[in-house]
């Protein structure tokens, strides 16, 4: 019995630990104060921007530590917080409105380390301060909008096919289309099935009235919800960029919720205002046949609706929506040749096609821009959800002069209005209103305090455990301590390597706990070796038996703990997830260091020798 490890096993241990150390290293360098520059839609951050900024900062006497241009994002590092503030102001002034300039803390990882993918652990909000929002998308509203769009589709499709219908209305069961006879119901059903196959049709005729009922299929409802969520995430992401926050997080959670995390933000009121401003825009034709007097008292044809105008008075608009704000890709406040404010709009390709078709057919007719906004009314429903109020206003009515394409202008606004409309449109419209269902703000000082507390607990616990192991197991205790330290370094290394892993306060707790529990593997092995020695085995045999017998125990014990960690990860949110991640990584690395790592040292030191006693 010689207890020799083959070369490859020793090498593997060395390589694993070396890689762990290497990737843990970036955490030692701390952070630089930096200013982050990101372009909003119409602009671009280029090498020219970079050299301009360098020139501006030099002229103001601000020393730049390093400036990096990556993924259209410029990061200017300076030496201290005061310089950082000065630099931010100088850059913001020099660049103007088309750029977002934000304060940031950038890891001060050396370039050579960064080049091979080294980066420090990301800190959760509880450790660096900031705001966390959990937002819920109003899916009822998203579905209602989609149903309205379907009703408009049905109207035009049936008209085009010259299938006569007596009326269309929404009922709780779905969209009800009324016909004059049973035969037409069948014809319409067959026709509509070919046009909109995402609806479920049924014959709802009763009492001598002939109805076709169209309801959204389950798959379609799912699709609509999914799209609404995705669209809202994109929009919120754009808005967060407008806020000028460094490294924001916008992420879906479950089927209808979105998490927004804004590190370093303290002004929650402004953040909420921008995030929650659920505005969208619709283009509709003005119903020019409507009688103004009747409309004033609310009497209009079934295909039209009355809306207030921003400049006073009312407008009668067709129910049919020609184009929604979803297709808008850009919007800038500009001026026409008479210096009147206007908003220049760019549409995506699909929107361009739709718009081109509808404007071609309606030259010379008035078109209205309807602005829709959902505001948090500040009140709550009995079930705790926030009551939203819907504000709808016609912001402009313009006569279509020519066939319009992907680029056109909206006029009839005041200067300020043009600016805020452009901002809202540029940031994109929320397809359905969102409400904030959870909000957490952590002050930056509390974050720093949390790190300090966690580190203190870690150092205190670690010191006692290390001393105990050394006293109790002597040479073997020393080896176990090496394994424990290597394990900690590896946890940090792996945490830094995994892109999604974030260190949170419970995460630190998880690491501290790992320190206490990681020695378990070694304790099991060493106790076993002692038993074997007491039973009269030779030293080499005792070492071999000790490791061999303890293995299945360690494996069983750790696998079950790993399972609970996995369940925690699956159901947990935020901080709990952070804890589960560090626990899982800790279990994996501690098994490795306790079983393979210590064995390799033990074999190197004592393997292959005839020993009478063992320092254990």
């Amino acid at each position, binding site marked *: 019995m010689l207890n020799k490890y083959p070369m490859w096993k020793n090498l593997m241990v060395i390589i694993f630990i070396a890689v762990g150390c290497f990737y843990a290293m970036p955490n030692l360098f701390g952070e630089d104060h930096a200013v982050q520059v990101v372009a909003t839609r119409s602009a671009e951050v280029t090498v020219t921007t970079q050299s301009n900024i360098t020139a501006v900062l030099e002229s103001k006497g601000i020393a730049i530590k390093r400036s990096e241009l990556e993924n259209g994002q410029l990061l200017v590092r300076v030496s201290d917080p005061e310089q950082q503030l000065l630099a931010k102001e100088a850059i913001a002034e020099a660049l103007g409105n088309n750029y977002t300039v934000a304060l940031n803390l950038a890891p001060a990882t050396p370039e050579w380390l960064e080049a091979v993918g080294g980066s420090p652990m990301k800190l959760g909000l509880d450790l660096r301060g900031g705001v966390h929002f959990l937002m819920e998308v109003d899916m009822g509203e998203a579905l209602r909008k989609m149903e309205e769009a379907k009703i408009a589709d049905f109207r035009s499709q049936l008209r085009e096919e010259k299938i006569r219908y007596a009326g269309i209305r929404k009922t709780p069961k779905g969209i009800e289309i009324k016909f004059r006879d049973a035969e037409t119901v069948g014809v319409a059903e067959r026709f509509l099935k070919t046009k909109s196959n995402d609806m479920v049709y049924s014959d709802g005729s009763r009492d001598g009235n002939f109805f076709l009922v169209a309801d959204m299929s389950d798959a379609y409802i799912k699709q609509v919800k999914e799209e609404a969520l995705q669209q809202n995430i994109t929009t919120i992401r754009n808005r967060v960029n407008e806020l000028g926050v460094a490294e924001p997080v916008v992420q879906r959670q479950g089927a209808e919720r979105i998490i927004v995390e804004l590190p370093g933000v303290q002004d929650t009121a402004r953040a909420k205002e921008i995030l929650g401003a659920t505005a969208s825009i619709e283009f509709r034709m003005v119903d020019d046949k409507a009688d103004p007097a009747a409309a004033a008292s609310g009497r209009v044809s079934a295909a039209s609706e009355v809306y207030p105008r921003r400049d006073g008075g009312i407008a009668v608009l067709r129910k049919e929506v020609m184009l929604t704000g979803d297709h808008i890709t850009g919007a800038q406040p500009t001026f026409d040749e008479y210096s009147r404010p206007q908003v220049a709009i760019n549409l995506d390709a699909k929107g361009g096609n739709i718009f081109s078709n509808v404007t071609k057919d309606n030259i010379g007719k008035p078109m209205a821009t309807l602005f829709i906004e959902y505001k948090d009314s500040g009140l*709550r429903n009995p079930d705790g959800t926030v009551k939203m109020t819907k504000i709808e206003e016609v912001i402009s009515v313009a006569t279509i002069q020519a066939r319009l394409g992907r680029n056109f202008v909206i006029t009839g606004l005041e200067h300020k209005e043009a600016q805020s409309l452009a901002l809202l449109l540029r940031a994109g419209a929320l397809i359905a209103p969102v409400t904030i269902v959870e909000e957490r703000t952590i002050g930056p000082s509390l974050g720093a305090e949390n790190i300090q507390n966690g580190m*203190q607990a870690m150092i205190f616990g670690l010191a006692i455990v290390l001393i*105990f192991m050394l006293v109790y197991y002597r040479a073997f205790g020393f080896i176990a301590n090496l394994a424990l330290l290597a394990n900690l370094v590896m946890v940090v290394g792996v945490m830094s390597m995994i892109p999604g892993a974030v260190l949170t306060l419970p995460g630190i707790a998880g690491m501290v706990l790992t*320190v206490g*529990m990681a020695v*378990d593997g070694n304790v099991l092995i060493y106790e076993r070796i*002692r038993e074997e020695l007491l039973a009269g085995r030779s030293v080499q045999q005792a070492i071999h038996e000790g490791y061999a017998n303890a293995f*299945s125990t360690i494996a069983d014990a750790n696998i*079950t703990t790993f399972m609970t960690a996995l369940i925690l990860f699956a*159901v947990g949110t935020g901080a709990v997830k952070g804890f589960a991640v560090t626990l899982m990584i800790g279990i994996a690395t501690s098994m490795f260091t306790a079983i393979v790592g210590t064995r390799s040292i033990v074999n190197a030191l004592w393997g292959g020798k005839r020993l009478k006693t063992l320092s254990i």
Partner: protein
Amino acid sequence: MFQLFSVNNTVNFLRHAAPISIISMLLVIASFVSLGTKGINWGLDFTGGTVVEVEFSNPVDLNVLRGKLTSVETEGAVVQNFGSSRDVLFRLPVRENIKSDLQAIGIMKVVNSMDDNAIQKRVEFVGPQVGKQLAEQGGLAVIVALICILIYVSFRFEWRLAAGSVAALAHDVIVTLGVFSILQLEFDLTVLAGLLTVVGYSLNDTIVVYDRIRENFLKMRKGTPEEIVNQSITQTMSRTVITTGTTLIVVIALFLKGGTMIHGFATALLCGIFVGTYSSIYVASYLAIKLGINREHMMPVEIEKEGADQPPMMP
């Protein structure tokens, strides 16, 4: 070699098993009674509401502070110190028709009227529905964890041992919950994480003992199940004491130095480690014996090959 426990003499742990398991049962009943009558002091994560944490520049008199919280927004606030007499935590329940921001702003108005230099350190608002969903998820997580473990242990060991380990885990979870209920400690998300960690830790302990029981059943030809279990517990005792010791040390470090936000987590672990360690002996092992565990149950199933009893054919 300096040792905490000598393995030469087997300690008869199970001699006290009957009275101790009765105490355990009483503990579980007491926990249930407390859970039924006092309930759990659910934290913000589960109830929804608003929490504002403020650091004053000087110690404050909570009664004066409470007296000033009379506006519509701040009514019904629970005011308490934590950590130091300068740190104050306000908890406000969800109120119909009142905006959570206004609640936080109302609190800060009162706070600043008493102390201009007070800092708002943390504001949290959770909608009641989110909280409800979380509570359901949390309860589900514990149950799923227990079922997964039951399956794993039945597969790796034997159903009697699996039943014993799950009973021990349930015991630990219930007693820990009971402690939170009796002392009316706040139960938030980190406590739930702590509770699941207790499940993991306690299981760790149980598995180590079980592993030895299985091994000893196969190794020792003589001895009643009680003797073998006693022997196994004695052999693993020094490991149990050392690991529990080191884990306790770091958990105490967390409890004392980790700060208020993980206080609940540390408390749950502290309690769970104590209960979990003794339950691996007096609940898990004892129940397995009561269920009639014996040597045959531990024998690996020998698969008889077809034709093994036939004489080999000559080529």
